[in-house]
Protein backbone atom coordinates (compact mmCIF):
# COMPACT_ATOMS: atom_id res chain seq x y z
CA UNK A 1 0.00 0.00 0.00
CA UNK A 2 1.46 3.33 -0.97
CA UNK A 3 1.66 6.40 1.27
CA UNK A 4 -1.12 8.43 -0.34
CA UNK A 5 -3.61 5.56 -0.14
CA UNK A 6 -2.69 4.98 3.50
CA UNK A 7 -3.11 8.69 4.21
CA UNK A 8 -6.52 8.66 2.47
CA UNK A 9 -7.61 5.70 4.64
CA UNK A 10 -6.45 7.55 7.73
CA UNK A 11 -8.42 10.64 6.84
CA UNK A 12 -11.61 8.67 6.23
CA UNK A 13 -11.15 6.72 9.46
CA UNK A 14 -10.49 9.95 11.32
CA UNK A 15 -13.63 11.58 9.98
CA UNK A 16 -15.72 8.58 10.97
CA UNK A 17 -14.11 8.49 14.39
CA UNK A 18 -14.87 12.15 15.00
CA UNK A 19 -18.46 11.63 13.83
CA UNK A 20 -18.72 8.61 16.12
CA UNK A 21 -17.45 10.63 19.07
CA UNK A 22 -19.90 13.45 18.39
CA UNK A 23 -22.77 11.00 17.85
CA UNK A 24 -22.16 9.12 21.10
CA UNK A 25 -21.72 12.43 22.93
CA UNK A 26 -24.94 13.85 21.49
CA UNK A 27 -26.90 10.69 22.34
CA UNK A 28 -25.73 10.77 25.96
CA UNK A 29 -26.40 14.48 26.23
CA UNK A 30 -29.93 14.03 24.88
CA UNK A 31 -30.76 11.00 27.03
CA UNK A 32 -29.25 12.61 30.11
CA UNK A 33 -31.22 15.83 29.62
CA UNK A 34 -34.46 13.90 29.15
CA UNK A 35 -33.91 12.21 32.50
CA UNK A 36 -32.58 15.26 34.33
CA UNK A 37 -35.64 17.28 33.34
CA UNK A 38 -37.96 14.60 34.75
CA UNK A 39 -36.07 13.22 37.76
CA UNK A 40 -39.15 11.80 39.48
CA UNK A 41 -40.09 9.80 36.40
CA UNK A 42 -36.55 8.48 36.23
CA UNK A 43 -36.60 7.66 39.93
CA UNK A 44 -39.72 5.55 39.38
CA UNK A 45 -38.04 3.79 36.46
CA UNK A 46 -34.92 2.98 38.46
CA UNK A 47 -37.13 1.65 41.22
CA UNK A 48 -38.75 -0.80 38.79
CA UNK A 49 -35.43 -2.64 38.47
CA UNK A 50 -35.33 -3.51 42.18
CA UNK A 51 -31.60 -2.77 42.27
CA UNK A 52 -31.36 -1.47 45.80
CA UNK A 53 -33.48 -1.51 48.91
CA UNK A 54 -32.11 1.68 50.42
CA UNK A 55 -33.93 4.88 49.54
CA UNK A 56 -30.69 6.85 49.86
CA UNK A 57 -28.98 4.68 47.26
CA UNK A 58 -32.00 4.70 44.99
CA UNK A 59 -32.28 8.48 45.18
CA UNK A 60 -28.54 8.88 44.61
CA UNK A 61 -28.62 6.76 41.46
CA UNK A 62 -31.65 8.60 40.09
CA UNK A 63 -30.26 12.00 41.00
CA UNK A 64 -26.71 11.57 39.75
CA UNK A 65 -26.95 9.31 36.71
CA UNK A 66 -28.70 11.75 34.33
CA UNK A 67 -26.25 14.55 35.11
CA UNK A 68 -23.33 12.16 34.84
CA UNK A 69 -24.53 11.18 31.37
CA UNK A 70 -24.76 14.86 30.44
CA UNK A 71 -21.23 15.35 31.72
CA UNK A 72 -19.89 12.44 29.67
CA UNK A 73 -21.80 13.66 26.61
CA UNK A 74 -20.26 17.11 26.93
CA UNK A 75 -16.77 15.67 27.35
CA UNK A 76 -17.14 13.62 24.18
CA UNK A 77 -18.56 16.52 22.18
CA UNK A 78 -15.71 18.75 23.28
CA UNK A 79 -13.13 16.00 22.97
CA UNK A 80 -11.83 16.03 26.51
CA UNK A 81 -10.57 12.87 28.24
CA UNK A 82 -12.07 10.81 25.44
CA UNK A 83 -10.68 7.43 26.40
CA UNK A 84 -11.43 7.83 30.09
CA UNK A 85 -14.97 8.88 29.20
CA UNK A 86 -15.30 5.92 26.83
CA UNK A 87 -14.36 3.60 29.71
CA UNK A 88 -17.06 5.17 31.88
CA UNK A 89 -19.64 4.80 29.11
CA UNK A 90 -18.80 1.11 28.73
CA UNK A 91 -18.96 0.68 32.52
CA UNK A 92 -22.47 2.19 32.45
CA UNK A 93 -23.76 0.68 29.22
CA UNK A 94 -22.89 -2.97 29.82
CA UNK A 95 -24.76 -3.37 33.14
CA UNK A 96 -27.67 -1.27 31.80
CA UNK A 97 -27.97 -3.53 28.80
CA UNK A 98 -27.96 -6.63 31.00
CA UNK A 99 -30.63 -5.13 33.28
CA UNK A 100 -32.84 -4.09 30.37
CA UNK A 101 -32.44 -7.54 28.82
CA UNK A 102 -33.39 -9.27 32.09
CA UNK A 103 -36.41 -7.05 32.54
CA UNK A 104 -37.52 -7.69 28.98
CA UNK A 105 -37.24 -11.44 29.59
CA UNK A 106 -39.42 -11.09 32.70
CA UNK A 107 -42.05 -9.16 30.77
CA UNK A 108 -41.87 -11.60 27.89
CA UNK A 109 -42.47 -14.58 30.16
CA UNK A 110 -45.31 -12.75 31.93
CA UNK A 111 -47.07 -11.76 28.71
CA UNK A 112 -46.07 -14.83 26.66
CA UNK A 113 -45.21 -12.79 23.58
CA UNK A 114 -42.22 -12.92 21.21
CA UNK A 115 -39.12 -11.31 22.67
CA UNK A 116 -38.90 -8.56 20.06
CA UNK A 117 -42.57 -7.67 20.64
CA UNK A 118 -41.74 -6.61 24.20
CA UNK A 119 -42.12 -2.84 24.45
CA UNK A 120 -41.59 -0.91 27.63
CA UNK A 121 -40.06 2.22 29.06
CA UNK A 122 -36.64 1.12 30.26
CA UNK A 123 -35.93 4.49 31.84
CA UNK A 124 -33.28 5.14 29.23
CA UNK A 125 -34.68 8.56 28.38
CA UNK A 126 -36.48 7.70 25.14
CA UNK A 127 -39.86 6.59 26.48
CA UNK A 128 -41.33 3.25 25.42
CA UNK A 129 -39.23 1.29 22.98
CA UNK A 130 -39.19 -2.19 21.48
CA UNK A 131 -36.57 -4.24 23.27
CA UNK A 132 -34.72 -5.48 20.18
CA UNK A 133 -34.27 -1.93 18.94
CA UNK A 134 -33.08 -0.84 22.37
CA UNK A 135 -30.57 -3.66 22.60
CA UNK A 136 -29.30 -2.86 19.10
CA UNK A 137 -28.85 0.79 20.06
CA UNK A 138 -26.96 -0.19 23.20
CA UNK A 139 -24.69 -2.61 21.35
CA UNK A 140 -23.92 0.10 18.81
CA UNK A 141 -23.09 2.58 21.57
CA UNK A 142 -20.87 0.00 23.28
CA UNK A 143 -19.08 -0.74 19.99
CA UNK A 144 -18.50 2.95 19.30
CA UNK A 145 -17.27 3.49 22.86
CA UNK A 146 -14.80 0.65 22.44
CA UNK A 147 -13.62 2.25 19.20
CA UNK A 148 -13.10 5.56 20.98
CA UNK A 149 -11.31 3.75 23.78
CA UNK A 150 -8.97 2.34 21.16
CA UNK A 151 -7.73 5.84 20.49
CA UNK A 152 -9.85 7.01 17.58
CA UNK A 153 -11.50 10.38 17.23
CA UNK A 154 -8.49 12.52 18.08
CA UNK A 155 -9.22 15.21 15.52
CA UNK A 156 -11.01 18.34 16.73
CA UNK A 157 -10.39 17.46 20.36
CA UNK A 158 -9.83 20.12 22.99
CA UNK A 159 -7.74 17.73 25.03
CA UNK A 160 -8.02 14.10 24.00
CA UNK A 161 -5.93 12.86 26.90
CA UNK A 162 -5.92 14.61 30.25
CA UNK A 163 -2.54 13.31 31.34
CA UNK A 164 -0.48 14.08 28.30
CA UNK A 165 2.84 12.35 27.83
CA UNK A 166 4.67 15.56 27.08
CA UNK A 167 3.86 16.92 30.48
CA UNK A 168 4.88 13.73 32.19
CA UNK A 169 8.20 13.34 30.43
CA UNK A 170 9.50 16.56 31.86
CA UNK A 171 11.75 15.97 34.84
CA UNK A 172 9.78 15.31 37.98
CA UNK A 173 9.48 18.44 40.03
CA UNK A 174 10.30 20.72 37.10
CA UNK A 175 6.96 22.43 37.38
CA UNK A 176 7.21 22.94 41.12
CA UNK A 177 9.68 25.73 41.18
Amino acid at each position, binding site marked *: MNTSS*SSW*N*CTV*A*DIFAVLARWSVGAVFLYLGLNK*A*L*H*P*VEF*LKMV*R*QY*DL*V*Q*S*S*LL*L*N*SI*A*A*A*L*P*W*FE*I*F*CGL*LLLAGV*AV*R*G*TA*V*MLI*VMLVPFTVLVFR*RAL*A*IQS*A*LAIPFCAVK*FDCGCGNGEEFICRKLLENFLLIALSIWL*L*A*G*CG*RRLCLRH*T*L*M*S*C*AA*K*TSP*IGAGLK
Partner: protein
Amino acid sequence: MFVVRQGMAHADCPIPLKDKIIQCETPVCHGTAKIFLEALLVAVIGATFAFGANLISPRGLALTRNYFPAGISRPVPAARDITSTNSPATSPAQLLAAQLQQQGLQSVDGRQAEQLFHDPRFQQGSIVFIDARDEQHYQEGHIPGACEFDPYYPEKYFSTALPVCQAAEQIVIYCNGGDCDDSESATILLRDVGIANRKLFIYTGGIPEWITNGLPVEIGGRNSGNLRSAIK
Protein backbone atom coordinates in the same frame (compact mmCIF):
# COMPACT_ATOMS: atom_id res chain seq x y z
CA MET B 1 1.86 10.45 42.49
CA PHE B 2 2.80 8.17 39.63
CA VAL B 3 6.22 7.83 38.04
CA VAL B 4 6.49 8.19 34.30
CA ARG B 5 9.35 6.62 32.50
CA GLN B 6 11.53 8.71 30.28
CA GLY B 7 11.26 8.30 26.54
CA MET B 8 7.46 8.21 26.34
CA ALA B 9 6.91 11.58 24.74
CA HIS B 10 3.90 11.94 22.46
CA ALA B 11 5.58 12.53 19.16
CA ASP B 12 8.85 10.77 19.59
CA CYS B 13 8.20 8.04 22.11
CA PRO B 14 9.69 4.78 20.92
CA ILE B 15 6.60 2.61 21.07
CA PRO B 16 6.87 -0.18 18.51
CA LEU B 17 4.43 -0.08 15.63
CA LYS B 18 2.67 -3.24 16.82
CA ASP B 19 1.58 -1.36 19.93
CA LYS B 20 -0.41 1.11 17.91
CA ILE B 21 -4.03 0.10 18.18
CA ILE B 22 -5.27 1.97 15.16
CA GLN B 23 -3.05 2.37 12.16
CA CYS B 24 -4.16 5.94 11.46
CA GLU B 25 -3.18 7.10 14.92
CA THR B 26 0.01 8.93 15.53
CA PRO B 27 2.15 7.09 18.07
CA VAL B 28 0.73 7.67 21.47
CA CYS B 29 1.88 6.96 24.93
CA HIS B 30 -0.87 4.66 26.00
CA GLY B 31 -1.15 2.33 28.85
CA THR B 32 -4.05 0.65 30.51
CA ALA B 33 -3.23 2.24 33.85
CA LYS B 34 -3.25 5.71 32.34
CA ILE B 35 -6.63 5.17 30.68
CA PHE B 36 -8.16 3.85 33.88
CA LEU B 37 -6.67 6.70 35.85
CA GLU B 38 -8.29 9.10 33.40
CA ALA B 39 -11.58 7.17 33.74
CA LEU B 40 -11.33 7.48 37.51
CA LEU B 41 -10.80 11.20 37.18
CA VAL B 42 -13.82 11.47 34.88
CA ALA B 43 -15.84 9.45 37.40
CA VAL B 44 -14.87 11.63 40.35
CA ILE B 45 -15.33 14.97 38.59
CA GLY B 46 -18.49 13.68 36.90
CA ALA B 47 -20.00 12.51 40.19
CA THR B 48 -19.21 15.86 41.81
CA PHE B 49 -20.80 17.65 38.86
CA ALA B 50 -23.83 15.34 38.95
CA PHE B 51 -24.59 15.72 42.66
CA GLY B 52 -23.92 19.46 42.46
CA ALA B 53 -26.29 19.85 39.50
CA ASN B 54 -28.97 17.86 41.31
CA LEU B 55 -28.54 20.09 44.34
CA ILE B 56 -28.91 23.27 42.29
CA SER B 57 -31.68 22.04 40.00
CA PRO B 58 -35.17 23.16 41.08
CA ARG B 59 -36.37 19.68 40.12
CA GLY B 60 -33.56 17.95 41.99
CA LEU B 61 -34.24 14.96 44.23
CA ALA B 62 -33.75 15.07 47.98
CA LEU B 63 -31.30 12.25 48.61
CA THR B 64 -32.41 11.41 52.13
CA ARG B 65 -36.16 11.45 51.54
CA ASN B 66 -38.07 8.20 51.25
CA TYR B 67 -40.15 8.84 48.13
CA PHE B 68 -41.82 5.45 48.36
CA PRO B 69 -43.17 5.04 51.88
CA ALA B 70 -45.21 2.06 50.72
CA GLY B 71 -41.99 0.17 49.86
CA ILE B 72 -39.24 0.36 47.30
CA SER B 73 -39.74 -3.07 45.71
CA ARG B 74 -42.10 -3.17 42.75
CA PRO B 75 -43.50 -6.09 40.79
CA VAL B 76 -43.02 -6.38 37.02
CA PRO B 77 -45.70 -4.01 35.64
CA ALA B 78 -46.96 -6.57 33.20
CA ALA B 79 -47.80 -8.95 36.01
CA ARG B 80 -50.85 -6.95 37.00
CA ASP B 81 -52.00 -6.72 33.42
CA ILE B 82 -51.84 -10.46 33.11
CA THR B 83 -54.15 -10.97 36.04
CA SER B 84 -56.81 -8.93 34.24
CA THR B 85 -57.49 -11.96 32.06
CA ASN B 86 -58.10 -14.15 35.07
CA SER B 87 -61.32 -14.72 36.94
CA PRO B 88 -63.02 -11.79 38.65
CA ALA B 89 -61.93 -13.21 42.01
CA THR B 90 -58.36 -12.22 41.19
CA SER B 91 -59.01 -9.02 39.27
CA PRO B 92 -56.27 -6.37 39.49
CA ALA B 93 -58.57 -4.03 41.41
CA GLN B 94 -59.29 -6.70 44.02
CA LEU B 95 -55.64 -7.65 44.32
CA LEU B 96 -54.73 -4.01 44.77
CA ALA B 97 -57.48 -3.49 47.35
CA ALA B 98 -56.17 -6.50 49.28
CA GLN B 99 -52.61 -5.16 49.11
CA LEU B 100 -53.75 -1.78 50.40
CA GLN B 101 -55.72 -3.40 53.18
CA GLN B 102 -52.57 -5.21 54.29
CA GLN B 103 -50.93 -1.81 54.65
CA GLY B 104 -53.85 -0.53 56.69
CA LEU B 105 -55.16 1.63 53.84
CA GLN B 106 -58.74 1.83 52.58
CA SER B 107 -59.83 1.88 48.97
CA VAL B 108 -62.84 2.70 46.83
CA ASP B 109 -63.74 1.43 43.38
CA GLY B 110 -65.09 3.38 40.43
CA ARG B 111 -68.73 3.05 41.44
CA GLN B 112 -68.05 4.26 44.98
CA ALA B 113 -65.92 7.14 43.74
CA GLU B 114 -68.74 8.24 41.44
CA GLN B 115 -71.26 8.05 44.30
CA LEU B 116 -69.01 10.20 46.48
CA PHE B 117 -68.63 12.70 43.63
CA HIS B 118 -72.42 13.02 43.30
CA ASP B 119 -72.95 13.11 47.08
CA PRO B 120 -74.23 16.56 48.23
CA ARG B 121 -71.46 16.57 50.86
CA PHE B 122 -68.94 16.93 48.03
CA GLN B 123 -70.30 20.39 47.23
CA GLN B 124 -70.08 21.28 50.94
CA GLY B 125 -66.42 20.29 51.16
CA SER B 126 -67.02 17.30 53.42
CA ILE B 127 -65.87 14.99 50.68
CA VAL B 128 -62.74 15.97 48.78
CA PHE B 129 -60.77 14.45 45.96
CA ILE B 130 -56.98 14.63 45.95
CA ASP B 131 -55.04 14.30 42.70
CA ALA B 132 -51.65 12.70 43.42
CA ARG B 133 -50.22 13.12 39.93
CA ASP B 134 -47.73 15.73 38.80
CA GLU B 135 -48.67 19.28 37.89
CA GLN B 136 -48.66 18.74 34.14
CA HIS B 137 -51.09 15.82 34.31
CA TYR B 138 -53.26 17.68 36.80
CA GLN B 139 -53.53 20.68 34.47
CA GLU B 140 -54.38 18.43 31.54
CA GLY B 141 -57.42 17.08 33.34
CA HIS B 142 -58.47 16.12 36.85
CA ILE B 143 -61.64 15.18 38.70
CA PRO B 144 -63.59 18.46 39.02
CA GLY B 145 -62.76 20.23 42.26
CA ALA B 146 -59.89 17.86 43.08
CA CYS B 147 -57.02 19.33 45.03
CA GLU B 148 -53.49 18.92 43.67
CA PHE B 149 -51.01 17.05 45.86
CA ASP B 150 -47.88 15.66 44.22
CA PRO B 151 -46.29 13.37 46.84
CA TYR B 152 -42.83 13.92 45.33
CA TYR B 153 -42.95 17.63 46.15
CA PRO B 154 -45.26 17.66 49.19
CA GLU B 155 -43.89 20.88 50.67
CA LYS B 156 -45.25 22.69 47.62
CA TYR B 157 -48.82 21.53 48.26
CA PHE B 158 -49.20 21.18 52.02
CA SER B 159 -50.35 24.78 52.44
CA THR B 160 -53.30 24.32 50.08
CA ALA B 161 -54.12 20.63 50.53
CA LEU B 162 -53.91 20.33 54.31
CA PRO B 163 -56.68 22.79 55.26
CA VAL B 164 -58.99 21.14 52.72
CA CYS B 165 -58.19 17.68 54.08
CA GLN B 166 -58.57 18.74 57.70
CA ALA B 167 -62.04 20.11 56.99
CA ALA B 168 -63.18 17.01 55.10
CA GLU B 169 -64.84 13.88 56.42
CA GLN B 170 -63.83 11.69 53.51
CA ILE B 171 -60.81 12.12 51.28
CA VAL B 172 -60.53 10.25 48.00
CA ILE B 173 -57.00 10.08 46.62
CA TYR B 174 -56.24 8.96 43.10
CA CYS B 175 -53.49 8.89 40.48
CA ASN B 176 -53.20 6.97 37.22
CA GLY B 177 -54.57 3.64 38.46
CA GLY B 178 -52.93 0.33 37.55
CA ASP B 179 -49.26 0.37 38.51
CA CYS B 180 -49.35 3.91 39.77
CA ASP B 181 -48.81 3.98 43.51
CA ASP B 182 -48.46 7.74 43.92
CA SER B 183 -51.91 7.75 45.55
CA GLU B 184 -50.54 5.34 48.17
CA SER B 185 -47.56 7.61 48.78
CA ALA B 186 -49.83 10.66 49.07
CA THR B 187 -52.14 8.83 51.47
CA ILE B 188 -49.26 7.79 53.71
CA LEU B 189 -47.85 11.32 53.64
CA LEU B 190 -51.20 12.81 54.63
CA ARG B 191 -51.59 10.20 57.35
CA ASP B 192 -48.12 11.02 58.64
CA VAL B 193 -48.93 14.71 58.98
CA GLY B 194 -51.98 13.96 61.11
CA ILE B 195 -54.92 13.36 58.80
CA ALA B 196 -56.98 10.55 60.33
CA ASN B 197 -56.53 7.27 58.50
CA ARG B 198 -60.27 6.53 58.65
CA LYS B 199 -60.89 9.55 56.38
CA LEU B 200 -58.48 8.45 53.65
CA PHE B 201 -59.59 6.32 50.68
CA ILE B 202 -57.57 5.39 47.64
CA TYR B 203 -59.45 5.32 44.36
CA THR B 204 -57.72 2.33 42.79
CA GLY B 205 -58.98 2.82 39.23
CA GLY B 206 -57.68 6.37 39.14
CA ILE B 207 -58.25 8.94 36.41
CA PRO B 208 -58.15 6.45 33.48
CA GLU B 209 -61.14 4.57 34.92
CA TRP B 210 -62.89 7.86 35.70
CA ILE B 211 -62.57 8.94 32.08
CA THR B 212 -63.54 5.51 30.79
CA ASN B 213 -66.70 5.72 32.90
CA GLY B 214 -67.63 8.89 31.03
CA LEU B 215 -67.34 11.21 34.02
CA PRO B 216 -66.33 14.85 33.59
CA VAL B 217 -62.82 16.19 34.02
CA GLU B 218 -61.73 19.71 34.80
CA ILE B 219 -58.97 21.33 32.76
CA GLY B 220 -56.50 23.78 34.30
CA GLY B 221 -56.55 24.86 37.92
CA ARG B 222 -58.88 23.80 40.72
CA ASN B 223 -62.48 24.99 40.24
CA SER B 224 -61.52 26.58 36.93
CA GLY B 225 -64.96 25.63 35.69
CA ASN B 226 -63.45 24.41 32.45
CA LEU B 227 -65.18 21.05 32.35
CA ARG B 228 -64.88 18.45 29.67
CA SER B 229 -67.24 15.52 29.54
CA ALA B 230 -65.48 12.32 28.61
CA ILE B 231 -67.08 10.15 25.96
CA LYS B 232 -67.89 6.67 27.10
